[in-house]
């Protein structure tokens, strides 16, 4: 009886842990097959089978022993999505260490806690470097130094507004709309008053920091690997983001009559 209780506790803990990892991976921007392989890998390291249903906003997991004496079934909602590749990388590394070094469950819990507390880049670094990326897009499109400065300022302000609205908890598409609108209003000023040689290029590149790069690549890899439902969901998500960007830009263009 003692061992039965022990086993039941172990399978409980394992299932909770696997679901948490899966939810973290999903919200950090991993694709479906990566989530599935990671979860299966860890489960098989503890000699259990795992079956997983992955959707955009929820995960369902069934874990059962090789002898099928116990099984455990649970559903977990995924937290709101926000790209965090440090988490994906950390969990992926950990999953290999669990297999190779035979970690105990307590150690995994501790490591996951450490991973969750890894700080993001400081906000001012994000603002400065992403604005530099905006200026770089302008340079790539053939802009001169004046246009690059316009794109830098527009990206900086737009990203700031987007972060602020996201912090206040507005709808995420609305945040993207606000960011695109502010960016194009600022860059549109340059077009309106003809600052620089090709002010249009500054306008184009000032909203490029919002492009849904992760949904784009993940949509394709999910569709090709046969996770068609998830692929469609991600694709629609990416389309709505692109639409929000276009709406923000369109409003600015209509206001300025460019």
């Amino acid at each position, binding site marked *: 009886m003692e061992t039965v209780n022990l086993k039941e506790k172990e399978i409980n803990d394992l299932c909770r842990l696997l679901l948490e990892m899966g939810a973290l991976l999903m919200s950090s*921007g*991993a*694709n479906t*097959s*990566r989530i599935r*392989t990671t979860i299966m890998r860890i489960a098989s390291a503890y000699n259990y089978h795992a079956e997983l249903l992955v959707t955009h906003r929820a995960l369902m997991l069934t874990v059962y022993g090789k002898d099928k004496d116990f099984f455990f079934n649970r559903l977990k909602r995924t937290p709101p999505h926000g*790209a*965090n*590749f*440090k*988490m*994906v*990388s*950390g969990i*992926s*590394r950990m999953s*290999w260490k669990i297999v190779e070094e035979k970690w105990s469950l307590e150690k995994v819990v501790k490591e996951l806690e450490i991973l969750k507390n890894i700080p*993001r*880049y400081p906000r001012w*670094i*994000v603002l400065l*470097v*992403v*604005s*530099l*990326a*905006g*200026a*770089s*897009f302008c*340079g*790539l*499109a053939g802009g001169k130094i004046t246009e690059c400065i316009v794109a830098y300022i527009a990206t900086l302000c737009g990203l700031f507004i987007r972060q602020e609205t996201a912090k206040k908890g507005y709808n995420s598409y609305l945040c993207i709309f606000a960011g695109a609108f502010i960016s194009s209003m600022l860059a549109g000023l340059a077009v309106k008053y003809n600052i620089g040689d090709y002010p249009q*290029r500054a*306008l*184009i*590149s000032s909203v*490029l*920091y919002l*492009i849904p*790069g*992760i949904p*784009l*690549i993940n*949509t*394709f*890899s999910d569709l*090709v690997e046969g996770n068609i439902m998830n692929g469609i969901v991600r694709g629609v998500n990416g389309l709505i983001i*692109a639409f929000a960007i*276009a709406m923000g*830009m*369109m409003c600015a*263009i*209509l206001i300025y009559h460019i």
Partner: protein
Amino acid sequence: MDIFLFIINKWIWLGCAAIGFGILFNVPVRTLIPIFIMAVMGGSIKFLTIKLGGEIVLGSFLGATLIGFLSIIAAHIKHSPPFIFAIPAVIPMVPGVFAYRMMLGIMRMTDVGHAAFPGLLEETVSNGLNAFFVLLFLAVGVSAPMLLTRTESAKNFKLTIHAKQEHKK
């Protein structure tokens, strides 16, 4: 000398754009330098293809494929999943100008007269298709190396055949 400066200029822009997105996606610090190098190499292939008379779609595809292969190598060296390198590195090649022109064309179509409509439609559809195909081939190119090697994880490349059989058991 001028062409040299031009190339250096492009390289810096390509790398900085990729690093910016890396920071936005919160990549580990150790992956920033590989992302920079991969973005520079992929973008160079794209510009080279266009310079040699190739289509922008082909150029983007070749650049993205190179990034896809490099991402697998980088994944071994830096111990991170390949797509962490590939997604930020491929973003500088996103066709912003085409997408913008398509959007502008669609907006203008709502209130343009009969005479100008066919020309505008042609232009808009052409720009839109270009943007769509470049995006599609960027995604294909990045995923191609993983599809070609038919493994679920880049780590398996390293394992010997014996170890692989062990793993399957």
